[in-house]
């Protein structure tokens, strides 16, 4: 068993309204950032987890997503064993 940092990205499901994204988009536009065409906001969750391998770590995290970290009704998730430069902040 070794330690891995897993990055879990939880994002609103396509088609669902994302009020935060809308507000940030609006704010960026009024700051003059016209190049931005759309904004969506989700969560980034970093888990420090003991596992046998990177794949095992990802698998464990995916199970946690299904169980707790993501709301299956409104959110999708994406799990990676994070690169070193994205280690647990």
């Amino acid at each position, binding site marked *: 068993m070794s330690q891995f940092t897993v990055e879990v990205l939880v994002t609103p499901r396509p088609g669902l309204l994302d*009020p*935060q994204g809308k*507000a*940030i988009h609006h*704010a960026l536009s*009024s*700051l003059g950032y016209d190049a931005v065409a759309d904004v969506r*906001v989700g969560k980034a969750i970093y888990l420090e987890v003991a596992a046998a391998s990177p794949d095992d770590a990802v698998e464990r995290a995916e199970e946690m997503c299904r169980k707790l970290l993501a709301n299956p009704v409104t959110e999708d998730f994406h799990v990676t064993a994070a690169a070193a430069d994205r280690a647990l902040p």
Partner: protein
Amino acid sequence: MNVAIITFPGSNCDQDCHRSVELAGGSPRYVWHRETSLGGAEAVIVPGGFAHGDYLRPGAIARFSPIMDAVADFARAGGLIVGICNGFQVLCEAGLLPGALLRNESLCFQSHHCRMRVERSDTAFTAGYREGQVLGIPLSHADGNYFADPDTLAALEAERRVVFRYCDARGDASPDANPNGSLNNIAGIVNARGNVLGMMPHPDRAIEAVLGSVDGLPLFESLIGALARAEVA
């Protein structure tokens, strides 16, 4: 005594502040966030609410409203500014006060009466209180957990810039009396010059006995009193 109350889309304590200033004998005036001038106001209140929905971070979007340049200029010129709740968050985001307000430790929105101790009665905002006086006033926020880096925090304490601290009925700033996880039980601070106050609890909701408390009214009276003295001087 002309007091500007800044209203952002999503402000919802503008009316409470308006009434507070009136009861304290001042003349409140709403200033819409898109305006660029404070119109000769002698003091500024940034009220509570959810400016721009508090999306992204509380106060993060509001600080870019056109009026905020005028508010910053006013602060630099030594004008008196009070930010309450969301207003405190806006002032921190705008850099007019140090630190930041994080999510409450409980992760829950919290709305209830709290007690806070007046740490200083020698500011323009607190002259109507006694030092050490315990106030009972409502608080109502999800992000009131005051944070500053160690150096800033040390400076705040050393310069006696913590104006209000959460406390229990006896006035002890104990951990149990801390509603949201704020460092050092901080409920309100001033800037280095002492002309900008930010606080999470709501003095604007403690101005009438029938609503449960009048402990907030002296804050507005102090403010109006300070303006009056400035005028005479």
